[in-house]
């Protein structure tokens, strides 16, 4: 009997700790009170930087408790489940999907004081068709291709390749040095999708012979055989041996070390990857180059959009607090702090952080910034199709023609859903 008593006691004790809810005393001093949940997928160092800003906010408003969490690579799945249940965090990161995925759940921010300060090149990417600004980009992205300056020199190039042809030539020269020209981590097919997403803009939108592709993509009459060069970009790299041998199976966890220790020339990722590589090897001679033009005479371009970007859930029960937090985060010194920590350009026109890559961006400052292909010219849901064909193309399990018709099928069915 004694034994049972002991078991019962232990059980009661654990139960007590498990279900004890803290009751908070509310003191009314005229300030803000309550608690707020903020969710993101940011990783180090952006996460720590935003966390710091939020700590400052709590210092300024002692009555407010903010719970800031990163869900890393599970974030998107979790947010989808939460949207389905219409139960979202008060403030959450929109990671490039503010308009196409989250808009339905976001509160327009046009009336907030920082709305007019958002940088004009970015604000469109967070504005819906009705003109609602639905998210606040703290950092923005200005991406092209990550490359290693030292290897570029060793391969005998003074300038980064400006056209696709030059890019292939550069790969050939780099390969001759015994360095992997393009590093693909195809275990997570996001990388191939990203490569096509970037190249598709140069090939189908900004090229001089793009014609009316953009309009046709919007109205559903696009001729998908024109996708051929985009898919070929992947197969060309693989077939010419310009990629790592394990392009289909390498895990993205290896990307930063490969970049950090100068074992690869090009990688299609954003600045955050360079920042991470620098934590492993501060001397890594890495930089970012614009996307080469498709044909001779086509201009190079940057791909960009919002990066660490937050929106407010339109049904948030803590609206007042959420707005206060957003206004606080938007203060120039706070935006600058996050941008510097992350090594990313800002989303505000009045904040220009001190970037390690500033020289590079300065050099190509006259180039235009375009959004990612799928975010602007494809219906939501095509990203997954691009991942599927990207993986299959790398593995040689799908021909370029098949990939075009897969894109077409998926495009037509998603357009029909809209």
């Amino acid at each position: 009997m004694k034994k049972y008593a002991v078991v019962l006691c232990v059980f009661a004790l654990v139960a007590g700790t498990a279900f004890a809810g803290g009751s908070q005393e509310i003191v009314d001093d005229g300030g803000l009170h309550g608690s707020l949940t903020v969710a993101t997928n940011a990783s180090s160092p952006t996460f720590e930087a935003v966390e710091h800003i939020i700590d400052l906010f709590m210092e300024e408003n002692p009555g407010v408790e903010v719970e800031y969490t990163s869900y890393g690579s599970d974030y998107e799945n979790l947010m989808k489940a939460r949207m389905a249940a219409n139960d979202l965090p008060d403030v959450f990161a929109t990671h490039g999907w503010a308009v196409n995925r989250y808009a339905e759940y976001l509160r327009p921010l046009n009336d907030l004081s920082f709305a007019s300060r958002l940088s004009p090149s970015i604000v469109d990417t967070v504005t819906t068709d009705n003109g609602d600004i639905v998210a606040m980009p703290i950092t923005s992205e200005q991406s092209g291709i990550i490359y290693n300056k030292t290897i570029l020199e060793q391969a005998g190039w003074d300038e980064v390749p400006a056209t696709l042809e030059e890019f292939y030539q550069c790969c050939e020269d780099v390969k001759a040095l015994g360095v992997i020209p393009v590093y693909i981590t195809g275990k997570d097919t996001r990388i191939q999708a990203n490569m096509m997403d970037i190249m598709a803009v140069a090939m189908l939108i900004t090229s001089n012979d793009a014609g009316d592709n953009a309009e046709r993509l919007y109205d559903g009459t696009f001729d998908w055989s024109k996708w051929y060069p985009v898919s070929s970009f992947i197969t060309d790299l693989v077939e010419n041996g310009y990629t790592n041998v394990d392009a289909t199976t390498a895990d993205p966890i290896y990307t930063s070390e490969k970049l950090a220790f100068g074992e690869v020339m090009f990688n299609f990722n954003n600045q955050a990857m360079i920042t991470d590589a620098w934590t492993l090897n501060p001397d890594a001679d890495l930089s970012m180059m614009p996307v080469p033009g498709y044909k001779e005479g086509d201009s190079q371009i940057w791909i960009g959009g919002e990066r660490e970007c937050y929106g407010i859930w339109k049904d948030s029960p803590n609206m007042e607090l959420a707005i206060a937090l957003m206004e606080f985060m938007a203060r120039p010194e706070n935006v600058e702090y996050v941008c510097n920590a992350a090594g990313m350009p800002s989303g505000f026109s009045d904040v220009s952080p001190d970037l390690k890559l500033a020289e590079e961006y300065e050099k190509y400052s006259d180039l235009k910034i375009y959004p990612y292909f799928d975010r602007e010219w494809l219906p939501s849901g095509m990203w997954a199709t691009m991942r599927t064909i990207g993986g299959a193309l790398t593995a040689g399990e799908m021909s370029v023609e098949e990939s075009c018709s897969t894109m077409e099928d998926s495009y037509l069915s998603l357009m029909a859903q809209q």
Partner: protein
Amino acid sequence: MAEKKKSKLKTKWNWLKSVIAVIIAGFFFAPFYIILSLSFKTRADRTSYWLFPSEPSFESYMYALDRGDIGLAIVNTLIVTVFSVVLILFLGAIAAYPLSRHKTKINKFILSCFVGVMMVPPLSVLVPIYKELVSMGGINTFWGIILITVTYNLPMSVFMFSNFISGIPKELDEAALIDGCSQFMIFPRIILPNMGPVISSVLILTGVAIWNDYSFQLYVLQKPKLKTITLAISAFFTEGSTNMPAAAAATVISVLPLAVIYICLQKYFVKGSMDSAVK
């Protein structure tokens, strides 16, 4: 003389058996050796996975305990696991008793429903369950995760308990009934005292499954204060940068309690599997 010879032969064989057993164990331990050596490396260390670092670094362990909050995660995981397992054992045992003792049509139906649950891939019903829990207010609560966990682990305990109870002679029940024992008292008086071994094996099997659950915990326990071990480990995997040594260190820390419990319960565990499997 013959006896002696036989035992000598046996010792000789035992010696060989020991060698084979150690070789097999070595093979099975290799993956754990890799994770151990990885956990003592720094992120920039790119030596072969087989090489133990010459200067083991405890940085990852500090990082895992500090940033990853593994200590808190272990407490949370313990809460979820202990409560779920107790409920699973209790509900499973009292359900298994009638279902296996009286094979009426309705009992047979209920039993096959339970076994059917073992077949449901939890991922295919995850979002409906999530919506249901939201409407019940069960998100970010221990009771929410415990209810779901219990539901999806109960079938295994019902399955093993009912196999076990089928093996206890029915005559015992009948004798007790004749002695004036209420049929509801037969279970605690006659059946339960015999169930020690099978309880310990269900305890291990479900305990391990719950300790390592990921999908349900990810969706139900979203607050950092509620995170469990698997969630803490997965937090080291992010799109931009993945801290593998820290993930490895967190794994090592999280497996230790289980290994200790297993070694303590091993004796009973084997006996329990025997009785439920062999009837």
